[in-house]
Each structure stands twice: as C-alpha cells, then as structure tokens.
C-alpha cells in the first residue's frame, strides 16, 4: 500500500478485552502476522505485538496488548485499558455468555476516553451462532460503538476492523506524535514502540 508523500506515522496503544477463549489472541495474530493457525503459533508470551495500518495520508502503528490469560483476574484488566487509545472488546458469536461479558466491558469503558470497538469473533461458525448479528449490531449502535463480525480463522473483517479503528482514532492525539512524542495520561497512550518482544 504505497502512498504518494511520506506518510505521517502515529502510534497507538490498543488493548483486547473479553472472556477467555473468545479468540482474542487469534485475532491479534491474524492481524499482526496475517495468518491463522488452528493451533496457535507461539506469540502468546509477548508483552504486546505491533502492526501498522496504512491510511491515505498517514500510517497508524498499533501496539496491541492482549489480556489473554487474565480473564479471571478481572481486577488486573483496568490496568490495561487505562492509557489505551482503543479497546477491542471481543466476544464469541457462539457464546451468549461471552456477549454478556462483552456488554459489561463496554459499560466499564464507556466513560473513558478509549475508543471502543466490539468484535463478534468466530463468524466462521455460523451454524452454532448464539448471538444474532442484528442484536449485537443494535446494541453497538445504541452504545455508539463500532461493531464488526470477524473470523480470525478465515480472516474475514480482521484487517477491516483494525483499519476502521485507525480511521476513527481521534486525530488530535495523533498530531504531536510525529516527533515520537507521547500522550500518556488522560489523553490515552499514543505510545511509540520499537517492536521488541512483539516481533518475535
């Protein structure tokens, strides 16, 4: 994806939240590495992963923090979304329970500056769907958040989801970022990153 002039590069911290085994890590891997592995490739131990999204005149570099493994330790989760520019709340369309959990996450994050996106994952398992698309969509509309149904397995909507978030992320916090500046604190973290652990 080439753009004419050298694009501005912006860094954003993004966090994934949701119940256990809704496919958070798979989504990240699918997005960060462009592949889905039935038995997931080693990436699970990394503190975060990085991936870039090219927009027309700018490049958004995500630093993606996955809370995988900590779902049961709910008291730890707020520490992740604090300072995150965006949060992807993931549920499994075959699990009603995971959708309810997603709703409580949305409620929890609603009053923060974090941009919220709701992802109904495992859309490849249409046959065992337990959460209707219309219901999830109308809920998301009602809450004023982005909703997409994704499949980490087929790749459906995964790039689209992160692309849409990149488009929607407030430009304001991107501005001073070109000089690798930080907007830590109430603005949410636009953190610059040097791939390190994530690029394994």
């Amino acid at each position, binding site marked *: 994806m080439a753009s004419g002039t050298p694009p501005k590069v912006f860094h954003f911290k993004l966090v994934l939240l949701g119940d256990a085994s809704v496919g958070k890590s798979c989504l990240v891997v699918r997005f960060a590495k462009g592949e889905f*592995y039935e*038995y997931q*490739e080693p990436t699970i131990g990394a503190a975060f992963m990085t991936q870039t999204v090219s927009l027309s005149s700018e490049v958004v570099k995500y630093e993606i923090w996955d809370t995988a493994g900590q779902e049961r330790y709910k008291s*730890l989760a707020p*520490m992740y979304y604090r300072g995150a520019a965006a949060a992807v709340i993931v549920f499994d369309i075959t699990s009603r329970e995971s959708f309810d959990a997603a709703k409580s996450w949305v409620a929890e994050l609603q009053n923060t500056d974090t941009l919220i996106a709701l992802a109904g994952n495992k859309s490849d398992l249409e046959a065992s769907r337990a959460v209707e698309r219309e219901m999830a969509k109308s809920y998301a509309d009602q809450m004023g958040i982005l909703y997409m149904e994704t499949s980490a397995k087929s790749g459906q909507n995964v790039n689209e989801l992160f692309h849409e978030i990149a488009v929607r992320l407030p430009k304001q916090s991107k501005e001073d970022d070109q000089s690798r500046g*930080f907007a*830590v604190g109430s603005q949410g973290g636009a*953190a610059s*990153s040097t791939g390190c652990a994530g690029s394994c």
Partner: protein
Amino acid sequence: MLLYELEWGGGDDVVDFAARLLRPRAGADKCVVARNGSFAPSQHAGRLQNSGGLQSHAAALQTDSPAKMKDLTNTLAVHNRGLGRAPGKKQVTSAPPHGEPSDEQQPKWKLVCQEIGDTEKAFAGHLDTLLESFVPAISAVVTRPEDLRVLFGNVRQLREFSVVFQADLDAALESDDVAHAIAALYNSTAPFFRLYSTYCQTHGEAQELVVNMLANKSFRTVVDDCEKEAGQSLLSLLIMPIQRVPRHVLLLRTLRDALPNASHTLPQQLAQLLGGKVADPKAACEAAITKMQDVAATINESIRERENAVKIWEIQHNLVLDSGSGSGDSSATSPSILFETHRVFKMEGELLMVYGRKHKKKRKCFLFNDCLVVAKSSGLKRKKWQLVEKVAAQQVQDLVDDSALTLGTSNALLVGCGEDHTALVLIADSAETKAQWLAAFRQVVPQGPLRIARTPSPAASSGRKGHGGPLMQGLVAWGLAVCMCTAAWRFTAALLVCLCMVLKATASRTRTVFPALTDPGRAVDLSDDASTCRAEIDGRVVAPSAEQKLPASAS
C-alpha cells in the same frame, strides 16, 4: 516372563541412565535399552516409540504372558497409526507455511520452549529499561520515598528473580529433555513467583500516581525524555510485570497442547501397566500449569485484599457516627465500626428503605460479608454518610411486586437481620439493581429457611435486642402520634390499629421467632390506613403457623 524394554531418542548418557533406572527392578529377566531405530524386538517385548521427539519419553512395559504382550503391541501400533506416526520414526511436525527455513524441522513444542526463553529475556530487558533509565531519573525528581515505593514496588527484586530464572531456563533449554526440564523448572520455581504479588498490589495506585504526577512539569519532562529514549511509555513498562505471570500460564498451556500425547491417552490397559513409571513431560507440564495458576490466583487475591482494605477504610472514613437527630443509633458507639480483619466489602448503592406506606427513606447501603450498613446522607457534609444502623443480614428474600409487603412498590427485597430476625424492606430503583443486590445478599447470608419475627421500626430500633417491651412502647408512641396527627374521621380507625398492635406486640413476646415465610402471597391484605405500617408489616410478615394462631388480627 518379565521384561522391560525401552526406546530412547537421547544421547548415550540418557541411555545409560535408563538402563540404570530399569535394571534393578525386581523380577526383570531382561532389560533392553535401545536407541531410536536400533531396537530389535524380542519375543515378548513391547515397545513404545519415542514419539514426537520427546527425548526422554521413557516407557517401561511389563508383562507376564506372550499373549498379553501381543495385545499391547497391537494396541500401540493402532495408537501410533491413529496419530499418523510410523513406528520407530521420529515424528516431524509439519512446519508452518510462513516459517523460517531453519524452523521447519522444529516441532511446535520446541518453538514454544524457545519462546518461553525469548520472552523471559525480552521481559527482563524491559525491566532493565525501567531500572536503569526511569528509576534513577524519576528518583531525582520525586522526593517522597513512599511515592517511589508505590511507583516501582519491588521491581528490582523481580529483576533479580528473573536473572536466576533465566539462568535456569537456559540450562533447561540446553538439556536433552527440554520440555520436561522446563516443566520441572516451573514446578520447582512456582512459589517464588509470589514475589509478584507485592508489585501487583500497588500497581493500581502506581498508575494513578503517574497520571497525577504527569501534571507536574518537571516530572513530565523527565518521563518524556526517558520514554523517548526507551521507546516505551512508563505506564506500558510498569504493566509488564502484571501480565508476566498469566503469560507463563498461557505459555505452559500452549506447551502442554503442543506436546505429543503420552501414556494417559493410550488405551487404559496400557496406561495401567505403565502407571507412574513414565516420565511424562505432558503430565509435568500439567502440574506446572496448576501451580502457576495457583500463584496467579494468589496474586489476584492479594490485590483484592488490598483493594478491600482500601475500600473499607474509605467507607469508614466517610461515615459519620454522631447522630444529630437523636434517633436510636445505638450501634454507632465505636469510631471504627468497620475495621475487622475478616470483613469483605461486597456492594454499595442507594436503596429506599420502607418505614411505612408513605414513609420511605433514601438510604445508602453498604453490604459486607458479615453485615449491612445503612446510612443516610449527611445534610451538612457532602459525600459523608451518617450511620443509621448496622445489622447482620441473615436472610434475604425476593419480594414479588404484588406482595403485600412491598406496599405497592416494585423491585423490593426483604432482608432478615440480626439474631432476632427482624426484617427490612428495601426497594431498588430497577429490576436489574434488585437482582444485583439479591445476588450480593445471597452470597453473604447463611443458607436455610427464612425466619422472620418482625420488621424493625426506627422508633424501636434502639431496643431491638430486647423483645416485646421497648417495641411495644415504640408502637404505642407511634400510634399516639398518628392519632394526634390524623383527621378526626381517622381517629377511630387509628386507635383500633394501635390496639391491635399492642396485642400483637404482647403476643410476640411469647414467640421470639416465627415460622418460615415462604410465600409472601400468603400475607393478608393491609388495611387502608397504613401510615403505621411498621406494625402492620409486622402483622403481615408473621405468617401464623398451623399450630400457632395469632391472638389478634388487624383485619
């Protein structure tokens, strides 16, 4: 005939070790230890492949009859076919399509082991950045040592621990039996990961502190400089130890799933024969996962304990105990009524407390594991609450909306309190809130049949512990007040009600606890004049049992 046979994929040292291990076993006529491929099955020998590259997947078969051995070998052959393995050949896992050429021969479990080592190094690198760049710079501008303690916790200790752990990991990664060595390392090291709880406990406060201190210009400048240099934000670095322990669990789980199946998935007769004699990395991995999960749970619990302590302190801090109104706040005697080591905060919120049909008061309720604190907003000091009462919740019941006890309101619940099983009727603002409260109450109340004697009245609450007398006085006083306040046409009715109350109160002296109220619908309708409904609730709550008839009834 007893026979042990074994096939190893390891080096000579492993083969020697296996021979030493097996030879002394009682009754073994023969011990064959062979390396991959060089194994020649003898007459009654069974053999287990060293499948999937498990270098020390030792299997000892023992049998006393040729027929049995034949069964076993057949079973094994079937099992191996099922796994798509050729007997005697080391399994090569198909490499991921994108993989580096050098990785293509690596089975997945090896990659996972590698990742455990790599990510621990990366993690230690982040801690180094924190310790070498941020800590000295921030220490120069933050003067209060307690702030520094909150900010960085025992991160230095964690770094030291990581150094030791990395050395052990490297040794494990070099060993012939990587998977087993790593699992064994986690098994022996797991308790030390509790060191993380010290760090994790204060992390929430550390984040708040960072956000607050960033308002300070000199602090901000220092942090900005460090962040530019490190390419990582302070908050990101600070959170890394938080996620490290759960990551270990995930890594171990991935490792377990990637390891080839061992004896526990073989048919049962084989597993029985092998029982306990197989050094199974998968089982060791499973044990390590359990241990690390326990550690993660302990850490989380310690965070919760700290949050609970802070929360209780806050509630106590905002609770005013002196009662200006002079009503019976007898429980508010000690200035620290909440500090108990066992006390756990459960829920808080505003509920309407029913004192009568037209007498409902907004109350702030704090539910703990062992008591319910009811407070009202303190008129003078905002954000402060004045204690109304502190009771031990014994029972809780969902009041259906058409129940007489709800006095026409919806979303009500009934809470039986204290040793004398008095009851409070509380009204939530929505069905959802009510459900939350009910769930919270059900967590804390002891299970058993509902036993309620009477509802407390504000006037009588001071004497709730004594039966009969003070209650009666209170009711009479209230009745009189009502009589004086109501219009003349209501006088007679009110007087009658008062009389009934007195009678009932007398009766209640003789039975301290009434039988179970299982069906609120059984309660009799209230009379029209319910301004004195404290007593009338009393009359309705107390459903007469079959053998005990109420001496008087209001209707």
